[in-house]
């Protein structure tokens, strides 16, 4: 199957900084990819490039199109939710629906109304009168009623309280995602989405620090809790990081032999957040 997104030598320079430094990656259809990185690492720049919202150097193909010159046709198959506050404040719920229906050939009004029926949103309400959570519900209802092939989410749950955040991803997974669709998501709250991801891309200082499927991540990284007497032995196996808990050391290993590690102590699967922190500390040398 051909890649949904394929980037080669993707580079974006601003006046004084390099936001993306010759990045290569491929995202296959039917995957849910987490694009994770610290602030200013280049996540949003990468998404903007994918969506045709910024110029760049290098090669980038999204669903077989060049987003720089073919944004209009690309947007027939791509949906996009930037962080919550991008719906125009003056628009009414019914106007937003009518507009998207008027310009998007793959929008289903019935689907949208069915989603909205589950919320407290009413057709006459204006976005400026809605809470952040309700704005996101509206945006999500609009986007999920479009039969797109690629969904791009940039910090979609920023500023939402926990109830809406959980519901957001649950709705997405249950009512939207299937094997034809691809989702790319960036977030700070990586623990929220790690159970739905199929792939992980870490990005740091404009470069890819890690690009792996979740299965590979599970195989590669292990965490071991080691008592002080075996600490030297553990350090000899070159762990990525060490942290102290209750007088014991927790080591994070990348590609260490499971047999060796089992002798040191109790083995755990590390969380994506821990792997992320370890990778960033090591300057992207995971």
């Amino acid at each position, binding site marked *: 199957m051909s890649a949904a997104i394929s980037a080669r030598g993707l580079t974006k320079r601003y006046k004084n900084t390099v936001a993306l430094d010759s990045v290569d990656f491929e995202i296959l259809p039917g995957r849910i990819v987490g694009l994770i990185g610290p602030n200013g690492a280049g996540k949003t720049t990468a998404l903007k490039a994918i969506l045709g919202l910024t110029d760049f150097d290098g090669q980038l193909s999204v669903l077989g199109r060049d987003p720089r010159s073919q944004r209009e046709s690309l947007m027939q198959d791509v949906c996009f939710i930037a962080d919550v*506050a991008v719906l125009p404040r003056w628009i009414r719920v019914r106007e937003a629906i009518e507009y998207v229906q*008027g310009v998007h050939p793959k929008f289903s009004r019935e689907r949208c109304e069915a989603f909205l029926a589950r919320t407290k949103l009413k057709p006459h309400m204006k976005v400026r009168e809605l809470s952040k959570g309700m704005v996101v519900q509206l945006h999500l209802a609009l986007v999920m009623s479009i039969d797109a092939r690629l969904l791009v989410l940039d910090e979609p749950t920023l500023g939402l309280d926990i109830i809406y955040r959980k519901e957001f991803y649950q709705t997405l997974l249950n009512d939207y995602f299937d094997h034809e669709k691809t989702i790319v998501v960036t977030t700070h709250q990586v623990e929220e989405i790690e159970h739905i991801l199929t792939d992980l891309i870490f990005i740091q200082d404009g470069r890819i620090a890690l690009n792996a499927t979740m299965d590979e991540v599970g195989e590669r990284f292990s965490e071991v809790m080691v008592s002080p007497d075996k600490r030297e032995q553990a350090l000899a196996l070159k762990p990525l990081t060490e942290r102290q808990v209750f007088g014991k050391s927790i080591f994070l290993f990348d590609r260490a032999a499971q047999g060796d590690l089992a002798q040191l102590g109790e083995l755990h699967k590390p969380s994506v957040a821990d792997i992320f922190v370890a990778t960033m500390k090591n300057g992207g040398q995971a």
Partner: protein
Amino acid sequence: MNHFPTLLKREYWEHRGGLFWAPVWTAVVLMVMLLFGIVVAEIALRQHGVEARSHVHVGMELNAFMTHFPDDKLDELKRGFDVGLMGLTMPLRITLFFVMLFYCIGSLYDERKDRSVLFWKSLPVSDAHTVLSKVATVLLLAPLITFAASVVLQTSFLLIVATLTWFHGGSPMRMVFGPAEPLALWARMLADVPVNSLWILPAVGWLMFASSFARGKAFLWAVVPPIMLGVLSAMSDLMSTLSLPDAWIWVHVVMRAFPIGLRFANIERGPVNIGGMRLGDDGPELTWSDLGDTLMDPELWIGALIGVGLIVAAIYYRRKRELAD
């Protein structure tokens, strides 16, 4: 292009206040002032009798409809209605100017400032269609709504004056519906919409280009450069070097950066035009020959071409520019 009506609706929803309510309220205020004028005229009549001069003018004195009107002066009434009905639309034209000005300056800047451009650009609508829908809104939708408001206002005016005449024992047919020729006037006003839009195309192009180009402070970008141009040319004696009158740059360049509709083109030949209306000796007029003159004026077409170029540039920057500061 089959989504173009939706794009126009979008513009209307966002700018309902300027496009619809501004002309409606202007017309309502004018009606209230007219009714107030009638009350004043009635009081003057009661106090001073037939010879009272109420000084309430609407192209003609209101007294005319309250007293016996001599047959030999009916021709004056015809002229009075033409000027009066036209004059009534002046405040609507001024409102339209401000609506157009602020609409254009915000048209491609506000969406970047409030980040909603990220929503609009997430939908399959090209930058060209987006910009053209805004051009159509300001050059067709806005003036047509103002035209409709003018028609309602002028009709109400005629009905009120007819009632006033009847109330004072005069004949509405003889005094109002005979001499007034609103249909012919509306035909000329409607014909003026595209002519005036061509005339202000450079202004719309310039303001939308500034709106699209500015990274911040769109209002200053739109307003300061044309005025600076005028001031600098005055300071540098550029006009006399080119052996042109000093006012040339203001009339032919600076003023045309704003949608005033002030047609100075034949300033050397005759009186000034405002949005098609010529300021005649006794009030504003709008004649077919004025419209024809404007269409024959090379300056209209040169300006329109420049306007088209600026709109193309606005489309380019709609694609290129990211969020505003």
